């Protein structure tokens, strides 16, 4: 009995979807716009996060040690720092490595090479390059180092970079907040547009819903086909949206990569195809069925 009804509901949903023709098409197109906004927001976040992460990666502080600092001492400080929660990564650069890096950098400068040769010993000290999980944490890391008052530390470049680090961390935070706010507002608008379209489509059926009630159909039996139709609108729209994204990202992906220096969106689209498709189908089907449920509710009062 229940199975028969479910079968009938699904069948009628398909038939109505087909017979409504233009109305179905119009609803799907609006749904495509909604899902396109959703998809763009997802891709936009990927781009924004990658760009911000890259920017954040450029921020670090370096602790320079005096030339007479012993290697064990530096390693000990490194281990101590690594235990801090705020620290994400520490790179140890030994005095020898620092010298060879320096030489590499000035390979074509004969004057520097000459003056280095004249020095008997390595003028450069070892250093620790520290990356924090959050730019705001450099302050506390440098304070920790200053408080330990290690005699072998020559200088910490935090103070001179402070202004830049603070400003950058402010920009990162603002960009994240703005991104989140935009996502929220745009998805809300997209949801409202889809919801109202489906509501209008169902408005045309309001007399029929009353008749179905009077003929003795239960509310669930009347609603079922509308929900099935809503799910179909969502699935078709997700399908079309994915198709639209293909040529768009093929063209836009490399451009965005050049401009933001971030990941290639087309590569992202290809490698996350099913995940993206799945999200759009879920969002579309959920929006379609929920809108149908809400829209039919007011006409089922009889």
């Amino acid at each position, binding site marked *: *009995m229940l199975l*028969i*009804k479910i079968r*009938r509901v699904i069948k009628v949903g398909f038939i*109505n979807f087909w*017979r*409504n023709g233009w109305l179905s098409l119009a609803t799907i197109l609006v749904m495509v716009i909604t899902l396109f906004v959703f998809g763009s927001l997802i891709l936009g976040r990927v781009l924004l996060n990658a760009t911000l992460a890259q920017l954040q990666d450029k921020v670090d502080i370096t602790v320079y040690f005096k030339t007479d600092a012993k290697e064990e001492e530096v390693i000990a400080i490194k281990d101590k720092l690594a235990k801090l929660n705020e620290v994400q990564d520490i790179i140890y650069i030994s005095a020898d490595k620092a010298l060879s890096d320096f030489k590499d950098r000035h390979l074509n400068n004969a004057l520097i090479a000459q003056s280095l040769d004249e020095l008997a010993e390595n003028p450069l000290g070892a250093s620790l390059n520290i990356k924090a999980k959050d730019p705001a944490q450099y302050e506390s890391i440098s304070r920790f180092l200053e408080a330990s008052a290690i005699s072998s530390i020559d200088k910490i470049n935090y103070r001179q970079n402070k202004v830049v680090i603070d400003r950058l961390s402010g920009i990162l935070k603002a960009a994240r907040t703005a991104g989140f706010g935009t996502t929220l507002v745009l998805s809300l608008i997209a949801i409202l547009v889809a919801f109202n379209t489906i509501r209008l489509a169902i408005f045309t059926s309001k*007399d*029929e819903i*009353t*008749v*179905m*009630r*009077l*003929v*003795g*159909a*239960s*509310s669930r*039996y009347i609603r079922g086909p509308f929900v099935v139709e809503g799910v179909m609108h969502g699935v078709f729209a997700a399908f079309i949206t994915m198709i639209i994204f293909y040529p768009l990202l093929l063209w836009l992906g490399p451009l965005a990569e050049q401009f933001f220096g971030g990941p290639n969106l087309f590569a992202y689209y290809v490698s996350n195809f099913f995940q993206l498709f799945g999200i759009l189908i879920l969002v579309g089907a959920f929006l379609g069925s929920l809108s149908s449920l809400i829209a039919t509710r007011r006409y*089922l009062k*009889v």
Partner: protein
Amino acid sequence: MVYFDKVSKIYSPTSTALDDVSFSIEPQEFLSLVGQSGAGKTTLLKLLLVEEKPTSGKIFFESQDVHALSRGELPFLRRRIGCVFQDFRLLSSKTAYENIAFAMEAAGRTDEDINSSVSQVLEVVGLVDKSWHFPHELSGGEKQRVAIARAIVNQPDLIVADEPTGNLDPLNTREIIEVLKKINEIGTTVLLATHNKDVVNALGKRVITIEKGKIIRDDKGGRYVI
């Protein structure tokens, strides 16, 4: 079978549709409800079908207070009452066959049951060759015959017809009334609201006359008198 107990319906202080109406309908009766437009006939039927709630009073269908039923229980009552309207009220996106089958599908009947019953009632109303037409491809008389087929296909105990001939020519009117009479002869109770004098006089059955929301006459074997 049906019992109206001091039913009033007041839409607004200046518009009283029904005023303290009481009467009962016996099983297998053919009752005509007459009165001018705005007398309260349609309101009375709407209250019986629970399309609207009365301001005061109760309506019983076989000792069940119909307005005490929940929204979930209502379909079971409505499957026992077939209804026909002046404006047909067919489902425009469904064919004649599907319109009739819908009432049975909603009641959860089996496919074989539906196939045989629908073919049978299509024959009764003489529309076998038009069964795959959509409502907009049918004439007024044909639409009303589909509506009647839909009303009787679940073999209801009561048929409620609200001015079923209001939009039809005399020939179609006579045919529709003939079908209703036939259904009544099989044992189904019929409640017919109409302002068609000829129809009522030709029937020669019980007539209740209402005016300004009140019952002013109730005659067995009555005539249309206003």
